[in-house]
């Protein structure tokens, strides 16, 4: 077996080992690779940055622990920005496995970001019917949010003062590993003209770009890169930025394997001729 035959038949276990190392090793070292901010993320940042203090925003953490590495850093970075802008944030989840993660974002806003409980941030918990919830908010949020997650009645929550429906809610952000941002877009934006932002995994982001181009989404945070870009914008580089180091190296290694495979393929073809 000559070298080209070996390169054409690299064992899968070896490929897996190298990929594993290229993901793991960057996590051990502290460094930040350069990252440009792309338009879909910049537009989200600019929109939130231009919101006046006290504006109401829905942050819907519609994701499960499976997609935590890509989506949770997005939620935290967005929450950090909204806390800094002193917006009124209503955190909820439309995913059955999302309550714990949404609660984590809420707790971080209070403990780390200086948000005041029930004045700057409210945690509403899980709502089983996504369509009914999104449509219900469009009519009257009192019909949907009777009390917060901890049982405090709606009328006792200062953050809801003067808010009736999407006319007063300036932005709805849906962070998800599935199709829930499209549900927000269809009903909140489609029916009530609400501003909607999507935060999704990299695979789902490709599916949502048509809606971003047609301005049905204000912007999209796509995958770990989107999360890392937003962390950079809010000056709080953390999980996503570290993760980008691993992704960058792993992608680079994948490209190297593809190049090696192609070189071997062409050399073998040449030999056969």
């Amino acid at each position: 077996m000559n070298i080209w035959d070996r390169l054409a038949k690299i064992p899968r276990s070896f490929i897996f080992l190298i990929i594993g190392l290229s993901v793991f090793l960057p996590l051990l070292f502290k460094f930040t690779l350069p990252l440009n901010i792309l338009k879909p993320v910049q537009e989200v940042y600019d929109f939130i940055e231009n919101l006046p203090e006290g504006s109401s925003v829905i942050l819907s953490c519609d994701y499960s622990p499976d997609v935590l590495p890509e989506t949770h850093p997005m939620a935290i970075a967005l929450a950090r920005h909204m806390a800094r802008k002193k917006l009124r944030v209503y955190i909820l989840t439309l995913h059955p496995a999302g309550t714990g993660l949404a609660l984590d974002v809420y707790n971080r806003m209070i403990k780390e970001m200086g948000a005041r409980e029930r004045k700057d941030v409210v945690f509403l918990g899980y709502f089983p019917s996504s369509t009914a919830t999104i449509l219900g908010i469009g009519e009257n949020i009192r019909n949907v949010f009777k009390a917060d997650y901890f049982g405090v009645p709606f009328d006792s929550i200062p953050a809801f003062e003067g808010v009736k429906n999407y006319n007063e809610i300036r932005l709805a952000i849906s962070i998800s590993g599935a199709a829930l941002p499209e549900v927000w877009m269809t009903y909140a934006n489609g029916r009530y003209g609400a501003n909607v932002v999507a935060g999704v995994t990299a695979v789902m982001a490709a599916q949502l770009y048509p809606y971003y181009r047609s301005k049905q989404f204000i912007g999209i945070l796509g995958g770990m890169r989107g999360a890392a870009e937003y962390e950079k914008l809010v000056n709080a580089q953390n999980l996503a930025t570290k993760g980008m180091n691993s992704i960058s190296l792993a992608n680079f290694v994948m490209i190297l394997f593809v190049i090696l495979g192609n070189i071997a393929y062409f050399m073998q073809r040449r030999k056969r001729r």
Partner: protein
Amino acid sequence: MKRQIPILIVFLVGLLGFLQYFVTGPISKGIYNTWLEWFQGVQGMAIIMAIISLTKRHWTNVRKGKNTIYSLITLFSLYGMMSLGLFIGIEKGSLFDKLYEYVMVPLNATTFSLLAFYMASAAYRAFKARSMEAILLLLSAFVLMIGLTSFGDMISKNLPYFAQWVLDVPNLAAQRGIVLGVALGVIATSLKIMLGIERSWLE
């Protein structure tokens, strides 16, 4: 008659569902909500049959000595979790909840993360410049895989914007074309079943 009645039911229910989409008001919403409730009821019934099928299959495997250990683990997990949930409860902090959070969730995440390895081996195996289309696939994969990571920013300031352009323009155009075709296919399939033209589900 045996065939006509199911086809008639499918047609009437399909027509009602189609018209309901275009009609507003509490009656229309009520019909839709009733359907959803019935659907959930049917799901509940179906899961009983599904669990019986699962148990039968794995018990047969155990009796025949075929993949015994996997089948035993499946049956133990299924009935173990069911018993925990039914008799001890599923509240936060319960054993059921802990097993879900510390066993099920990490297992799901682990299986999901296998994608990274499989992607590498699939790319190595399949991305060969055999034809013009394969070369285009290869080049766009290079541009996107490098362009949307930090190495892309290091190679050139414009590479990430070019990669984003590939997503925003050619990718978007192709997606829209596929989505249009899929939408027509979905309508055609639905109409074929409603009108009784496609009867493979019935024969």
